[in-house]
């Protein structure tokens, strides 16, 4: 489990990037917390710098869009999903449980999509 930041430091609509390998992005989408791999599966770009709308994050380079709940791309040019990771809030601090590199291939299994509530 990796501590991210205090809950109040990630307001709705905001995101934060963890310098893990590979980097992970944590989003507060209207009060729901999500974590996905930060690097767009199309080309090297940081999704934490993208445009967040509802549960969709648009890549800042080529406008590929991903569903934060599943990691699946919702439009081209991305064709591969990004991995999703579980998010917990403990004692007011957001934590991410990074999916193991071998176990989670980012196949978009919604049950593996970590969702924490910021509400």
């Amino acid at each position, binding site marked *: 489990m990796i501590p991210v930041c205090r809950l109040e430091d990630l307001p709705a609509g905001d995101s934060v990037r963890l310098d893990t390998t590979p980097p992970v992005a944590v989003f507060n989408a209207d009060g729901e917390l999500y974590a996905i791999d930060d690097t767009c599966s199309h*080309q*090297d*770009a940081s999704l934490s*710098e*993208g*445009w967040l709308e509802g549960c969709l994050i648009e890549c*800042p*380079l080529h406008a590929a869009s991903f569903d934060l709940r599943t990691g699946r791309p919702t439009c*081209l040019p991305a*064709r591969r999903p990004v991995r999703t990771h579980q998010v917990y809030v403990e004692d007011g601090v957001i934590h991410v449980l990074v999916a193991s590199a071998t176990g989670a291939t980012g196949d978009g299994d919604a049950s593996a999509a970590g969702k924490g509530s910021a509400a």
Partner: protein
Amino acid sequence: MRAVIVVGASLAGLYAARELRAQGFDGRLVVIGAEPHPPYDRPPLSKSFLTGTADEDRLALADEEETAELAAEWLLGTRVRALDARGRTVVLDDGRTVTGDGVVIATGAAARRLPGPPLAGVHTVRTLDDARALRADLTRGPQRVVVIGGGFIGAETASSCAVLGHDVTVVEAAPLPLAAQLGPQMASVCAGLHARGGVALLTGVGVAGLRGAAGRSVTAVELADGRLLPADVVVVGIGAIPNTQWLAGSPLAVDDGILCDDGCVTTLPQVVAVGDVARVGGARAEHWTSATEQPRAAVRNLLAGHTVESAHSLPYFWSDQYGSRIQFAGHRTSGDIARIVEGSSADPGGDPTAGARGGGLLAVYERAGRTTAALAIDCARPFMKARRGLAADRAAELAGV
């Protein structure tokens, strides 16, 4: 419409094929490509592919599943030689013909070359085969590399060569590279990235020719002022020419690209053109984003039989060089004033050798109090907001608001 021919199997051609199926066309679909390779993405060729961080499998634009779903007949490694007078039959190089009710032309553009006999060690960076050949030369130990042309391809290639440890010089005929695209102020900031990457930039001097015995390797680049730059590898990045030669004698109007209306429709309603080869509504854009956006309107108009949708979108391009990401959106014209609204021009890109990125900068271009364009260096999130604002303004303008 029972059969559509897509001439060109690169980004725009593939997106046209996708749009045809997405918009309900279920007839015969023939895609003709001059290169032997299935559709691949070109932007990484001068960057991650050249430096070896991305391999060919990362360049593929469609996987097997999607290719199967498209249910197209692929004629790869096949050049076209003519379009018949009715614009329905395409003549292949070997004399065979393919006939359809509709034609999408996506033949792209070819790298402009320097005159003179071919010399080993001289490269362009346009196709996968170009990039493979350059990569092979660059893996033979440290080399003196001269890049002719300081545009985006030249700068990206110079940056990649520097990363690989080569001794790199960029020669640019204009007083400042990229000034036509970015304006003098921001072009000057971008020119500064070369020095930061350890690359020499010579500006305001043209190239007189290449030195080297015919059929042998290049030895030097001769400048217009008589100077000689010793070189083992030369990269020529002096622009591209739209691939329209095969249309000579066809009814299509051609003038630096195929002339199209706002909806990518040519002078024949059953022929549309997209991507680098198309001059849409008076402008030709050699941008990845145009190649992916134009096919939607082009295919809609092709299937409708006349122009029902225009392909206007906000121009957008990006470039990665010396560890920095440059993004530009909008319509800048000469005289627009650039104003830095975030960050500073002092050190926008940080220090690539230390792997550190600077704070980045966002500049907006203004004319008569209106924002016309935006440029960012390592400033993706604010740029995205600015780009969306520009797109909204443009949509309102087109709607006549």
